[in-house]
C-alpha cells in the first residue's frame, strides 16, 4: 500500500510540475499577477509530494519490503538500519528520486524565501525550475520507477554493494546532490533573466547566495567522496581522475568562477553575459555528469547499471535544457548592455584572470574525461586518459590560479596600483620563501615543483590572513567587516590548506609493501610497525579477518592499528578496511591482503577464514604527509562559503543599486 502511495505522489508531483512550468510563465508574459502567483503554492506542493514519495521508498527499505523490486535488489534484512536508510540512494532509481527531491527543495526554498524578488522574475525562475523537475519526474516514472513490485516477493534481498556500506559514502550523495542540483536554481534564474532580457546588479545579488550554497555543498560532497575513497578503497589514493569524479569537479570549477564573476556583476555591473553563461554551464555540466553516470557511455567505478533507453531519455533532457538555454543565450545575450569599464590591472581584472583560469581548467578536465569517447567516435582506438594527462595539464593551470588568489584581494576596484599591491604582498612573499627554504632544508628531497607548491600554499595562506587582518585592524573593526569579506578570506585560506595537503601527500609519500608474519616489524618514516596477530570476528552482515599491529613513532608509546579484510556472505564480496593513525602532520595508513592476491579488493575467502595463525600476510604501509589537510581545507572552504552566505547584504530586501563613488 505505502509503495503505491509513493508512486501516486510521484505522478501527482509530475502533474503539479507541468502546471508550474507553464502557468506562471504565461502569467509573467501577460503581466497577470494571479497566474504568476500560482508558482509559489505549486512549488511547495511539488516539494511535499516528492518528499512523500521519498518517505514511502525509505519506509519500504526500513521494513525490508522485498515485494518492491528496488528494495529486493539493493537491501538485505541483516543490513544495519543506517545502511537500510542510506541504501535508498545507493542505486539508480533511488538516487534519481533524491536528485528530484533536492531539485524540488531548491524550488520550494525560492518560493518560500523569495518574497523580495520581483514577481515576474520569481514566477519565471520557478517555471524554469519546474520544467527541469517535470523532465526528471517523467524520466523516473517512465524508465526508472523505484516503486515497481515483484510477484512473488523474494524472501531475502540481494544486498547493497558492501563497498557502499560506509558512513562516508552514505552521506556523500546527499551533499553532492545539494551542490550539483543546487546549481539548477542558479540556472533557472539565468534563463528567467534571459527571457526577461534584463540583467542588472540586483539580479547578480539574488543569484549569489544560491551559487554560494550550492558551491559550499558541492565542496563538502566532493571532499566526502574523496575521503571515502582514501580510507575505504584501500589504495591510499584520494583522487583518481575517474570520469565521474571529474563530472562532479567540473561544476565545482565553474561554480567557483561563477561566484567571483557574480561579484563583479553585482558591484560593477560588468561581465554580465559571461556570468549568465557560467550559470548555464554550471548546471549544464551537472546534467552532463548525470548523463555520464547513468547512460553507460563511459565506464567508471561509479557507473550505475546502464541502459541505452535511459541514456536516450537523459540525452533528450540534456539537449533540451542545455541546448535550449544556450540558444536563448545566443539570441538574447548580445542585446545586454555592457556595463562598467575597468583597467586590466584591477580587482575586476584579477577576477577575470581567475575566471579564465578556472574555465580553462574545467575545459581541460572536460577534454580529458571525454577524449576517449571522442577519439573512438572518430574511429580511433579505445584509450583511457590517465592521471598523467591531468597532472600535466591541470597542475600548470592551478599554479598561476593560486598565485592570483593570493594577489587578487590586494587589488583595488576599477584601477589598481600594482606597486602598492606588491608592497602589501611583501610579508606573505617573505613567508612563502621562508616556508620553501624550510622544506628544502628539513624535509626529504623532493622535485622542484613540490617546493613551488609549498611556496604557493604558504603565500596564499599568509596573504589571506594578512589581507583580512589589514582590513580589520582592531577587533571592533573586525566585527564590522562584512561577513562576505571574512568568508572570502577564510575560503581562500582553506584552499591554501588543501593545496598544502595535495603537495605534501604527492611529493613526500613513502610506501612499503611486504609479506609479514606475526612478530615481524617494518620501519617507515620514523615509525616502527610490528605485526602482533590476526583474529577472525563477526560483524552484523560480514565476517572480518583483523590484523593487530603496534605502531610506535621514535620512542613514543605504542598505538594499536587494526586493519581488516571483510567478507560479506550475501554477495561474496571482500572489502578492505584500512587502519589509519593521523597525527595532523601525516597519516600512517595500513592495509592487509591475502599474499597470493595482493590486490586491495578481492582475494581468496578461504585464506581469509582458514589462514593459520603464523601465516604471512601482504602488508601495505603508507606514510602520507599532510594528506588530512586536503579535506580539512575543503571543510574550511565550505565554512567560508557558509559565513559569506550569512552576510546581511544577501538577506536584505530589494538592494539599492550602488553608484560607483569615483565615477
Amino acid at each position, binding site marked *: 500500500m505505502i509503495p503505491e502511495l509513493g508512486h501516486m505522489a510521484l505522478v501527482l508531483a509530475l502533474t503539479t510540475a507541468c502546471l508550474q512550468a507553464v502557468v506562471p510563465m504565461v502569467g509573467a508574459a501577460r503581466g497577470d499577477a494571479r497566474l504568476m502567483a500560482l508558482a509559489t503554492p505549486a512549488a511547495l506542493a511539488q516539494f511535499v509530494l516528492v518528499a512523500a514519495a521519498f518517505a514511502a521508498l525509505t519506509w519500504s527499505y526500513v521494513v525490508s519490503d522485498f515485494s518492491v523490486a528496488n528494495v529486493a535488489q539493493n537491501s538485505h534484512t541483516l543490513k544495519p538500519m543506517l545502511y537500510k536508510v542510506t541504501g535508498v540512494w545507493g542505486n539508480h532509481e533511488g538516487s534519481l528520486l533524491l536528485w528530484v527531491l533536492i531539485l524540488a527543495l531548491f524550488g520550494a526554498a525560492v518560493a518560500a524565501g523569495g518574497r523580495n524578488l520581483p514577481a515576474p522574475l520569481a514566477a519565471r525562475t520557478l517555471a524554469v525550475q519546474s520544467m527541469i523537475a517535470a523532465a526528471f519526474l517523467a524520466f523516473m516514472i517512465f524508465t526508472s520507477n523505484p516503486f515497481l513490485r515483484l510477484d512473488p516477493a523474494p524472501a531475502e534481498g540481494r544486498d547493497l554493494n558492501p563497498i557502499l556500506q560506509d558512513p562516508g559514502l552514505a552521506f556523500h550523495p546527499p551533499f553532492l546532490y545539494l551542490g550539483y542540483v543546487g546549481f539548477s536554481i542558479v540556472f533557472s534564474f539565468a534563463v528567467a533573466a534571459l527571457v526577461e532580457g534584463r540583467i542588472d546588479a540586483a539580479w547578480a545579488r539574488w543569484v549569489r547566495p544560491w551559487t554560494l550554497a550550492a558551491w559550499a555543498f558541492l565542496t563538502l560532497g566532493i571532499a566526502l567522496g574523496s575521503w571515502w575513497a582514501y580510507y575505504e578503497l584501500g589504495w591510499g589514493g584520494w583522487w583518481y581522475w575517474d570520469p565521474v569524479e571529474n563530472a562532479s569537479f567540473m561544476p565545482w570549477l565553474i561554480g567557483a568562477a561563477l561566484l567571483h564573476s557574480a561579484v563583479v556583476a553585482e558591484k560593477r555591473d560588468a561581465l554580465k553575459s559571461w556570468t549568465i553563461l557560467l550559470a*548555464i554551464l554550471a548546471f549544464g555540466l551537472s546534467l552532463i555528469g548525470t548523463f555520464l553516470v547513468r547512460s553507460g557511455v563511459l565506464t567508471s567505478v561509479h557507473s550505475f547499471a546502464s541502459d541505452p533507453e535511459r541514456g536516450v531519455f537523459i540525452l533528450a533532457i540534456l539537449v533540451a535544457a542545455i541546448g535550449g538555454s544556450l540558444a536563448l543565450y545566443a539570441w538574447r545575450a548580445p542585446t545586454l548592455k555592457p556595463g562598467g569599464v575597468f583597467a586590466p590591472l584591477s580587482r575586476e581584472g584579477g577576477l577575470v584572470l581567475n575566471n579564465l583560469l578556472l574555465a580553462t581548467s574545467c575545459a581541460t578536465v572536460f577534454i580529458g574525461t*571525454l577524449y576517449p569517447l571522442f577519439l573512438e567516435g572518430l574511429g580511433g582506438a579505445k584509450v583511457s586518459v590517465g592521471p598523467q594527462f591531468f597532472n600535466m595539464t591541470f597542475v600548470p593551470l592551478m599554479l598561476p590560479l593560486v598565485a592570483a588568489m593570493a594577489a587578487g584581494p590586494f587589488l583595488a576596484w576599477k584601477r589598481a596600483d600594482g606597486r602598492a599591491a606588491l608592497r602589501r604582498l611583501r610579508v606573505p612573499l617573505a613567508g612563502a620563501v621562508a616556508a620553501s627554504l624550510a622544506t628544502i632544508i628539513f624535509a626529504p628531497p623532493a622535485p622542484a615543483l613540490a617546493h613551488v607548491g609549498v611556496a604557493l600554499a604558504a603565500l596564499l595562506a599568509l596573504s589571506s590572513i594578512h589581507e583580512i587582518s589589514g582590513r580589520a585592524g582592531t577587533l571592533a573593526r573586525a566585527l564590522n567587516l562584512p561577513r562576505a569579506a571574512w568568508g572570502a578570506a577564510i575560503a581562500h585560506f582553506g584552499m591554501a590548506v588543501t593545496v598544502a595537503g595535495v603537495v605534501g601527500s604527492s611529493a613526500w609519500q613513502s610506501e612499503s609493501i611486504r609479506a609479514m608474519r606475526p612478530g615481524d616489524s617494518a620501519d617507515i618514516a620514523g615509525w616502527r610497525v610490528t605485526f602482533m596477530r590476526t583474529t577472525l570476528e563477526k560483524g552484523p552482515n560480514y565476517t572480518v579477518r583483523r590484523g593487530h599491529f603496534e605502531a610506535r613513532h621514535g620512542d613514543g608509546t605504542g598505538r594499536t592499528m587494526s586493519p581488516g579484510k571483510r567478507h560479506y556472505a550475501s554477495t561474496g564480496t571482500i572489502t578492505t578496511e584500512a587502519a589509519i593513525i593521523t597525527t595532523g602532520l601525516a597519516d600512517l595508513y595500513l592495509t592487509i591482503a591475502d599474499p597470493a*592476491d595482493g590486490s586491495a579488493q578481492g582475494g581468496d575467502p578461504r585464506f581469509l577464514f582458514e589462514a593459520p595463525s603464523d601465516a604471512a600476510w601482504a602488508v601495505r604501509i603508507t606514510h602520507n604527509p599532510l594528506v588530512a589537510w586536503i579535506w580539512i581545507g575543503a571543510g574550511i572552504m565550505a565554512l567560508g562559503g557558509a559565513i559569506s552566505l550569512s552576510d546581511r547584504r544577501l538577506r536584505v530586501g530589494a538592494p539599492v543599486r550602488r553608484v560607483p563613488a569615483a565615477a
Partner: protein
Amino acid sequence: MLRRLLFALPLLGFAAVAVWFLHGLGRDPAAIPSALIDKPVPEFRLPPLEGSGKPALAAQDLRGRVALVNFYASWCAPCRIEHPLLMRIAAEKRVALYGIAYKDGMAESRRFLAQLGDPYAAIGWDGDGRVAIDWGVYGVPETFVVDRAGRIRHRHVGPLSDDTMAKVIVPMIARLERE
C-alpha cells in the same frame, strides 16, 4: 554580426558534444578490443580444479578445435548471470568450452560449480590470476574465442547474453570451423 556569432559559440560547441554523446550511446562500452586478437594464446599450464573431476588446462589443449575460454570466479555476480547460458552451450556440444577459475579458492570454485552445474570440458585453476594477466583479462567474466590453430580471434568482456551469442559468437564459430 561577429558579436552575435561569438554568443552562439557555446551553442555550437554544445551541439558538437551532443552529437558525440548520441554516437556514444549506440556503441557497446563492453566491446574492448584485445591486443591479442589473431595472436596465438599465451603459453600457460594451469593445475586442475581439484575434486571437480575435470582435467587441467594448458595452451596446447586449445588446438585442433574451435574453443571458448571462459574466465570465471565464484565471487563474481555477473558470472552467475551468464552461467545458465554456459550450461546450454555445453549441452549443445557445438564448441569446446573451457573454464579458467580466476583468483578463486578451490573449495569456493567447486561449490560454485556444484551449485550451478559444471559446463566446462576442462578447468584450469588460476588462483593468483597470473595467467589472466597474460591474457589481458581485467575483470570476470571474460570469454575468448580460440580458433583451431590456437589463435585468439575474439574477446568478450562481461557476461555473455543470448543476444551476443546469436549475433556474434555463434556466427563466428561457424566461420572458424569452415576455415
